[in-house]
Structure formats: structure tokens, C-alpha cells
């Protein structure tokens, strides 16, 4: 949310984020429709490891908390704490990505890749697109770490960190719906 009245950049970024929400909505709709179309194969939810997904969820959630801390410390101009909070966010993001990559690699190795049937295609597209967002966000975050360390233009870096935090929070919000509607619903065979 715009921290300063009239901050057009933050508002523009927020509008972009809302368009990204609509993108994910279309992927969710597609997944909902194609869920049962496994051509006889087990559903992804049947193949998934719930405790593993729970850890992914808690890791991403914690990173959403630490990015909040990042913005909090940036507003207070505490450079070291900002750096630490941002580093923690990125480390957790990387951990989430590793877990997800492992999950995908395992599914593909067992022959349950996105090309196997419509349901798997929808799953990999939805969860994969979210993962791609997390990856790009992590790259962006690393660039911000560099800017934080070498640059003195505090207001600009703080505003970019604010945009980054909005992006990161939004990714966790999307994940709430992924773990609920893809994994948990799937486990109930809804």
C-alpha cells in the first residue's frame, strides 16, 4: 500500500499486482476444471506428501513475515537490520524453491510430468507459475541487497523494498489458495 500520499510508483505497482491476481485466477479456474482429468493416473494430491507441503507453506509464510520486517527496518533507516531481514527472506524463498524443485523433479522422474495428462498440465502450470514468480522475486531481492549495501539513495531503495514486499506478500497470499485448493482439497478427493 502506498506509504506516502501521492506515491504513484507504489500505486502503479499495486495495479500491476492486481492484474497478476487475475492471471492466477485463470490458472486456478483451469486447474479446478481439469482436476479430475488424469486419464486413469493418480491425482497429484494423491502423490503429494502433505507434511512436505506444510513445511513449504510455513517457510513461505515466515518469509512473508521477514519481508515485513525488512520494510519496517528500512523505514527506520536501520541498514543492518534491513539487510538481515531481507537476507532471511531470500534464504527462506530459496529454501521454498528448492523444496518445490525437488517435488517437481520427483514427480517427473516417476513419470508424472506435466505432459502426462490434462490435470498434471494444469497443476504444473499453476504451481510452476507461482514458483517462477518466487524465483524472479528472489533474483530481484538479491539485486536489492546489492543496492542496499552500495547505494546511498535511501528513499529510492526504500520505495523499491516496499514494492518488493508487496510482491512477496502477494505470492504468499496466492500460496494460501494453492495449498488449500490444490493440495488439501485434492487430499480429500473433492
Amino acid at each position, binding site marked *: *500500500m502506498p506509504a506516502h500520499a501521492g506515491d504513484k510508483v507504489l500505486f502503479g505497482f*499495486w*495495479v500491476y499486482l492486481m492484474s497478476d491476481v487475475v492471471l492466477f485466477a485463470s490458472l486456478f479456474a483451469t486447474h*479446478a*476444471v481439469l482436476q479430475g482429468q488424469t486419464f486413469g493416473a493418480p491425482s497429484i494430491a494423491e502423490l503429494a506428501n*502433505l507434511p512436505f507441503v506444510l513445511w513449504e507453506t510455513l517457510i513461505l509464510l515466515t518469509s512473508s513475515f521477514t519481508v*515485513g520486517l525488512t520494510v519496517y527496518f528500512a523505514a527506520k533507516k536501520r541498514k543492518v537490520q534491513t539487510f538481515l531481514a531481507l537476507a532471511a527472506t531470500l534464504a527462506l524463498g530459496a529454501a521454498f524453491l528448492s523444496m518445490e524443485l525437488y517435488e517437481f523433479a520427483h514427480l517427473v522422474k516417476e513419470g508424472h510430468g506435466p505432459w502426462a495428462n490434462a490435470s498434471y498440465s494444469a497443476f504444473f502450470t499453476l504451481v510452476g507459475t507461482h514458483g517462477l514468480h518466487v524465483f524472479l522475486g528472489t533474483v530481484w531481492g538479491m539485486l536489492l541487497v546489492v543496492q542496499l549495501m552500495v547505494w546511498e539513495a535511501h528513499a529510492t531503495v526504500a520505495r523499491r523494498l516496499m514494492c518488493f514486499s508487496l510482491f512477496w506478500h502477494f505470492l504468499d*497470499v496466492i500460496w494460501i489458495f494453492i495449498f488449500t*485448493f490444490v493440495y488439501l482439497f485434492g487430499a480429500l478427493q473433492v
Partner: protein
Amino acid sequence: MSTLQNYSIGFLLSIAFTLAAFWLVWQHVQGAALFSAEKLVVLLVGLAVAQLYVQLICFLHLGAEKQRPRWSLIIFAFAAVVVVVLVGGTIWIMYHLDRGHTDLSEIYPSGTVSPQTQDD
């Protein structure tokens, strides 16, 4: 309420909702079902919406703009309308098509067989 308290409460509530959702499903899957699958679906949606709300307020500070009108809130509300129409509408239409509630000839008057194509 300070920003730090806001983030902390949001974080703790989100953890609680997440653990509750996973625990309920885990119970069900292990056979020790506390609720029927139908009730569980409602509960899970409720928990997801609750966590969404908590994260929107505590993390994204939705509605906290000082200036009026609250443009970011307005844009969010519009996006929400689009999402409801898109997801709800898609599921509604596809469900009806799947169940045969819609006579395909109403949508495809010429029939559903693909026209013969010439080989190049």
C-alpha cells in the same frame, strides 16, 4: 497498534490457520475424521479466507491509506469482482457442460463434428 505488533499478530494467526487446515485434512486422511468431507470443505475455505483477510490487513495494510478515496482498496475490490466472475463463471459453465445440462446444439447449431479439412 504498532507495525511490528501488526506483523507479528498477522504471522501468528496465519500459522494458526495454516496448521488448523493441515491438521483437519491430516486427521481426515488418517481415518480419524472429525468432520464429514463436505463440512471440511467449508471449513477449509473459511480458514483460507480468514488467512487471506489477516494477510491483507496485517501484511498488505489494505484499507490503511490515509488519503481518500482509497484507490488501492478500490482497485483491489475491482480485481476481486473480476476473479469471482472468472473463476465462478468458469466452474459454473464447465460444470453444466459436463453434466449435459446444456444442449450442445444450442451453442453449436451446425453440429460438433469438425469440418473436413483439405490436405495441402
